[in-house]
């Protein structure tokens, strides 16, 4: 690794990002601007998450990277290999073994511990962006905790569809103060954000924003008293491991309309199968 800095970024950049991270941790849910750098992958592939990971990664860390819950998809494989090469850190696919987890769109099924850090890749850090186009105005709304508009959106959903129709990136209130976009994790994962023992860091590279939820912080999904938040999942069992409580992906398996529901968290599914759990469709062909 001669000629390269540890974990790709130069020390001044990491210092700048760490300062933004400290501020973000100090004000849970508040979006802190930072000087996002060009990274060797396109915007939307995790440039924000990868910069945070590079800034907090140490030589003794064990890194896990997941994309939609899976360890073996393009985004996860390339980011994991990127840090294995530029930082020489140990990598893993086991949630319990990792000290640092970078994720896109999922929180692992295995509960995280207080010695772990989870880094989310965030495409749109502003939860009000679809409702209020002006960023000047949304900043003012955050400053004044003026969040009636977000509830108007929930009201509209219930009036039109009988329920809140947001299934991912479901807005949350952090520490009773800041409205926050939890990145496009399914609403199913929202309860895991609440009082999580691990430190949660969020990076949006294109939008140049960092925010954080410190360990054991209250994170509440927005709802109405008479329409409480519900974490929904597909009403099936995992075809491979038979899990009934995990978040499922629906996979098309042939040209005849055949479908398979499997755990989106591959580590969770593999661990269950190793422990002897078998799903209805766990044929050798799969």
């Amino acid at each position, binding site marked *: 690794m001669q000629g390269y800095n540890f974990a790709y970024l130069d020390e001044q950049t990491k210092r700048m990002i760490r300062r933004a991270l400290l501020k973000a941790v100090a004000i849970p849910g508040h979006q802190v601007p930072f000087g996002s750098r060009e990274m060797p992958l396109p915007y939307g592939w995790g440039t924000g998450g990868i910069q945070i990971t590079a800034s907090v990664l140490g030589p003794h860390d064990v890194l896990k990277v997941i994309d939609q819950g899976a360890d073996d998809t393009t985004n996860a494989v390339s980011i994991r290999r990127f840090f294995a090469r530029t930082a020489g850190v140990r990598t893993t696919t086991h949630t319990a073994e990792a000290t640092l987890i970078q994720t896109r769109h999922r929180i692992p099924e295995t509960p995280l511990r207080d010695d772990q850090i989870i880094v989310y890749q965030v495409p749109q850090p502003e939860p009000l962006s679809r409702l209020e186009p002006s960023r000047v105005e949304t900043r003012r709304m955050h*400053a*004044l905790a003026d969040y*009636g508009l977000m509830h*108007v959106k929930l*009201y509209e959903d219930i*009036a*039109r569809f009988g329920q809140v129709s947001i299934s991912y990136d479901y807005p949350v209130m952090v520490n009773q103060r800041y409205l926050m976009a939890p990145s496009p994790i399914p609403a199913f994962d929202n309860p895991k954000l609440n009082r999580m023992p691990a430190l949660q860091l969020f990076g949006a590279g294109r939008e140049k924003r960092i925010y954080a939820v410190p360990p054991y912080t209250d994170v509440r999904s927005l709802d109405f008293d*008479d*329409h409480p938040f519900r974490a929904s999942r597909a009403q099936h069992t995992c075809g491979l491991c038979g899990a009934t409580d995990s978040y499922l992906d629906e996979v098309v398996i042939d040209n005849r309309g055949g479908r398979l529901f499997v755990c989106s968290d591959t580590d969770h599914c593999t661990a269950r199968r190793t422990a002897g759990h078998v799903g209805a469709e766990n044929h050798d062909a799969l």
Partner: protein
Amino acid sequence: MHSETLLSGRGLHLSFGTIPALAGVDIDLWPGEMLAIVGESGSGKTTLLNVLSGRLHPDSGAVWYRDPAGQLHDVHAMPAPELRKLHRSDWGFVHQDPRQNLRMTVTAGGNVGERLMAQGARNYGDIRAQALDWLAQVEIDADRIDDLPRTFSGGMLQRLQIARTLVTHPRLVFMDEPTGGLDVSVQARLLDLIRSLVARLQIAVVLVTHDIAVARLLAHRIAVMQRGLVVETGLTDQVLDDPQHPYTQLLVSSVLNA
């Protein structure tokens, strides 16, 4: 009549470049009172309304507001969060063009409920019941609650704006030409509605209008403005039946059947 003013402006000056929009205006408003500010275009009526409501800062002078506890607040020295809180609870603003105030992509019910939700209402059933109640009060059919405002007529939009503003029972409402741009029969109905709502809810209103007939129908008191100054003020009938200032005399005599 209460002895203490609800809102008072003292020595208000504001110039746009070399044009003095307000040239030393003193004005008082008592609780439950409807004050009309009349005058020709460019006399500073709307500027005065914006200064009184804290939306524009005067070059000099102060606006004092008395809260329900009797405490006086300097509107222009108030921290932004408090002013915004006032604007979404104790105060209301009715624009001439309802599209400025309404959210055109949100249903009628959502529009009426927004101020309630901004104040922390978190029960869908209650919010909806209040929205239905207010739609009924402004004479909009209950089955239009889930329709978008763009399917509403001009008069309905204005009534929806009024429902959205009054849902939190404000003590003070600023109205900028609320009947402007509506045809005469719709205007008459709207004026009737405003008059009955305001009387029933005991709301103080600052009403800006260029239409003397509107002022005569609604206002208890009237203030006549010319070139940034209040030239005459008094009870509506007194001012309109026996105008003292030459400009007021001109204004009254220029209106048919005023």
